[in-house]
Structures are given as structure tokens and as C-alpha cells.
């Protein structure tokens, strides 16, 4: 999940009898699957939760350009270079859609970006892991975008209209990226040398668990989920989505001819699902807190980009003003 731990600030969910008339009308609309639009009344906590979730999602798209930017100058063929450039461009575009969706809630893009740079706002933990070989570009497409899609497909039905519509557009492009990523790995496994096959397995070993963490804390440790589900911002629980991801990904892993770095992974015929091992939750929370392998570099890079670019943005504003004055005269 791109926005994997979103505070709702709500300790206990109100039932309909405890709600004001406005709140009740809102909840009834949610319950009958009517989309909430920008000008509709909404509880302040709903608005704030969405701002946090959509901004976190947008920040993830932007920070997510960095692990790929690390390899775009070193892509091994013209075709792969073009694919990666197109993908990075799409991600910048997704960031733009999402910031726009967030702004319909009255939030300011620059203010939210400033929170990212001060460490106050989060982004997906996955982008705090380094990309160490070319196969990481395939594994990021396949596993990371794959995990994002599982989450985002459900978010197409999220209760806030502008967010749900952004997800529809984004999902189309993400599915394309995921197939491309998988094809990178398949090519290396089927036509590559032993060194390339080792790269693929190494990338999977490093990115498997961080990808599972993208769905957020387990349901029992996800106190904010209940309210998000009641508001239908979230439509399915973290653990349900994680299970779906594992179930659909393992056959793809087998088709590659790779192994999963989880000794506890096995098919459970009774449940009709794969059982899998325990996530290192300590690592997950540490990475979210800022203590992951690349947290410092990622935020520093983004902060530097915006600081170094200040004079460029100021020039654009000054020039636009001059032109406006000239036209008025």
C-alpha cells in the first residue's frame, strides 16, 4: 500500500444514534455507496484522514522516483532505458493527479510537501530500501507496483470521488509497469547468464519482505483501520490485501523459477491460501519512523531539489507577473 499507516485521530467509531444530523446524513450516503465530492459536507476527521492518506500516497509517487532514478542512467539497453524513463514520467504524473485530488480537500500542496521534508509526513516504507542491481528495476515493477495495484484496485471504490477517480487512471498505468517489470525478470531468468539469474534472486530476496510491508500493520495492530473502513476510505483490511498479494504472486514467482525468502511459506489447501511467515514488524516500524536504510538520503534529495529550485520557481512567478502587467498596460 502506498499510504500504509494513516492516523484517523478517531478513538472510537460512533454509531448512528450518537451522530449529529449532518454526520448521520453523511454516513448514510457512505453506506449507500454515494461518492463524496469536494463541495459536500464531511466530518473534519474524514477530511483530515483523507488529506493524510492522499498526500502520503502522492509523496510515495515522488520519492518512489528516486530508487529508479538510481538506475535510469545505467539501464542496459535502449529499450530498457526508454521503458524506465516512461515509467518515471508516469510516476511524476501520478504525483500530480494525487496532489490535485488532495487539494480538492482544501489542503495546500506546498504545505504538505514541506511536511514531507521536515519528516512529519510519511511515504511508503518500500522506497527507503536501496536499489543495488539492475534486477531491482524488474522486481520493483513486479513486486512493488504489484502490491500497489492490489491496494489501488480496491481504492478505485473509495468513498471520496476525486481520490477514486485518480485511482482509476493510475491503475491503468501501474498495471502496465508491473507487466514490464515482470518481463525484465523473465528475460533475465529465461535468456540470461547465471550472473543475471543471481541478480534476480538477490533482488527478490531483498524486496520480498519490504513489499509485504507495503500493506501496513497487521489488522490486530491497525487501530485506524476500523474508522477508515466505516468511512469506506479503505475497503479491505491490510491482512486481506496482503494475503491476496501473496496468493497471486507466488505462482508468478514459480514461473520465474525463483524461490521465496520465506521458509514458512506453504500452500494451505484447507484455507485455499498460502500461509506465510511472520513479518519483521520491528523493522517495519523503524523504517516508518525514519530509521531505514535510505530514509535520510531520500528526504535529503527531495528537500535539496525543492530548495535548489526555489530561484527557478521565483523566476517563473516574476516573469508571469511581468507578462501580465504588460498585457494589462
Amino acid at each position, binding site marked *: 500500500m502506498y499510504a500504509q499507516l494513516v492516523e484517523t485521530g478517531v478513538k472510537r467509531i460512533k454509531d448512528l444514534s450518537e451522530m449529529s444530523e449532518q454526520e448521520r446524513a453523511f454516513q448514510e450516503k457512505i453506506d449507500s455507496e454515494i461518492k463524496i465530492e469536494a463541495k459536500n459536507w464531511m466530518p473534519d476527521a474524514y477530511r483530515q484522514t483523507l488529506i493524510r492518506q492522499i498526500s502520503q500516497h502522492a509523496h510515495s509517487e515522488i520519492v518512489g522516483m528516486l530508487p529508479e532514478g538510481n538506475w535510469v542512467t*545505467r539501464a*542496459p539497453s535502449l529499450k530498457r532505458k526508454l521503458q524506465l524513463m516512461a515509467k518515471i514520467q508516469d510516476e511524476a504524473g501520478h504525483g500530480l493527479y494525487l496532489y490535485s485530488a488532495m487539494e480538492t480537500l482544501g489542503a495546500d500542496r506546498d504545505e504538505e510537501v514541506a511536511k514531507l521534508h521536515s519528516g512529519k509526513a510519511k511515504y511508503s516504507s518500500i522506497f527507503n530500501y536501496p536499489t543495488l542491481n539492475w534486477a531491482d528495476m524488474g522486481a520493483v515493477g513486479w513486486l512493488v507496483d504489484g502490491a500497489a495495484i492490489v491496494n489501488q484496485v480496491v481504492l478505485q471504490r473509495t468513498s471520496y470521488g476525486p481520490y477514486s477517480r485518480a485511482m482509476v487512471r493510475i491503475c491503468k498505468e501501474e498495471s502496465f509497469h508491473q507487466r514490464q517489470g515482470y518481463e525484465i525478470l523473465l528475460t533475465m531468468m529465461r535468456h540470461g547468464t547465471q550472473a543475471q539469474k543471481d541478480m534476480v534472486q538477490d533482488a527478490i530476496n531483498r524486496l520480498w519482505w519490504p513489499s509485504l510491508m507495503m500493506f501496513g500493520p497487521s489488522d490486530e495492530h491497525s487501530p485506524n483501520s476500523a474508522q477508515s473502513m466505516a468511512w469506506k476510505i479503505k475497503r479491505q483490511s491490510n491482512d486481506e490485501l496482503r494475503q491476496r498479494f501473496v496468493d497471486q504472486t507466488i505462482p508468478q514467482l514459480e514461473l520465474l523459477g525463483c524461490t521465496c525468502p520465506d521458509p514458512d511459506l506453504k500452500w494451505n489447501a484447507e484455507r485455499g491460501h498460502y500461509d506465510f511467515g511472520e513479518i519483521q514488524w520491528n523493522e517495519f516500524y523503524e523504517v516508518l519512523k525514519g530509521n531505514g536504510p535510505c530514509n535520510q538520503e531520500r528526504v535529503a534529495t527531495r528537500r535539496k531539489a525543492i530548495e535548489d529550485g526555489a*530561484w527557478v*520557481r*521565483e523566476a517563473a512567478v516574476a*516573469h508571469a507577473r511581468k507578462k501580465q502587467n504588460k498585457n494589462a498596460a
Partner: protein
Amino acid sequence: MNNKTDLIEYLLRLGDSALIQGQRLCQWCGKAPALEEELALMNVGLDLVGQARNWLEYAAELLDDGRDADHLAFRRDERAYRNLLLVEQPNGDFAVTMLKQFLYDAWHLPVLQGLSQSSDERIAGIAAKAVKEATYHLRRSGEWIERMGDGTEESHKRMLAAIPEVWRFTVELIAADDSEQRLCEASITPDIASVAAQWQAKVEQIFTSATLPVPAAPNYFYLNARKGLHSEHLGILLAEMQFLPRAYPDATW
């Protein structure tokens, strides 16, 4: 057969320049002054690398020595590279980057327009498609020169500082060598004097509107990328770009 050798050289010049310019734009990933610019820089880079692939594929076919476009891009050393000196220069700040882009675009567009009329149908086809992209590139980079030149005091100062950093490399844009002269006479490539005049006019128009001084014509300075005589920046750029195919020569990506 003379034309064929000239043509291969010319295709490498076009392809290598687009590729190296695209590679420089890749280095901006995640570092642009605004999100819209992340998108635009990668978009322009993508167009250029795409064009490079088309030119190099054609060059590889004419060479017919078993090398393909990837081989030409990722296995040639700097002495065999034929890109313009201008595009291999470091990105510097946004003023340097956009000035390089503008000076290149203002040359690239009339070249492509001329090539779209080439007697070589393959060239005419590739160029016709690329003209649409280069038209967009030039509009965008020209607008940035105006915004920065006629923006704030600081942006004006940075533009003034950027000009001497890259201006001398434009000497290559306005002079043809014998090989290009022969291709022009065969109606394969446009007349370089006409390209140079269009380039000069565009630079004067945009610089004037950007309140920037138009520098005097650049002098020849004893480097010549057409002969593979590059600045010291290209070798490092290629070391990064070519690392994987060089380290794993038997690999399939």
C-alpha cells in the same frame, strides 16, 4: 560508396547527440525544481532517446557488421562517439541545463525540418516524426530562457553566468565539414548555412525577449566531436551509461 560512409557518420552524429542529451536529462530525475519539471525533463529525454534509437538502428543497418543499435550505444568508446560537444557538458544548475537544451533545440528543429525533406526516405520518415517532438522541446526551452532571463535579478544573473559556460560549444552547430557538405549536395541533409541562419535568428529572438545579450559568434577551439575529439566529460558519462553491457558482455537484458 562515399555517400554511405558519410551517411553513417551523419547518423551517428544525430543519434549520439540525442542519446547524450537524453542521458544528461536522466541525471535530473528526482532533482528538478518542480514536479511539473520532473515530468517535462523526463518527457523530453524520452523523446530524444527514442530518436537516438531510430538513428542508431539505421546506422547499424548501413554498417552491416553485426552490431545493432544497443551495441553502438553501449560498446563504443568516447573516441568513436560523434555527439555534439554541447550536449555532453555537465548539467550545472537549471539555467545551464535549459540553456544547453535551448541551444540544442534551436539547432535540432531546423535540422529535422530539413531532414524531413531528405531524398533518403528512411531519414525523411524518422525526421518527420521527430519534428513534432522537437517543436515542443524548442517551445518549452525557449520559454524557460525567457522566464529565467526576464524573471528575477538572481535568475537573470544565473543566465548571464550560464552563457559563457556553454556558448563556445555552439561553434559546432553552425559549421559543416566536407562529409556533411557532400550529403547536402546529394539532397540527403539540409544546407548547414540555412540551419545556422535559422539557429542564429531563433537565438537572437529569444535572448532579446529574455533581456539577455547575444554573444559574438563562437571561435573554433581545437576540439572536434565529429572526429571523436571530446571534452573530458564524455568518458565519465559513458562509463556510467555503459557499465552493465560492458561488465556482462554475454547478457541478454
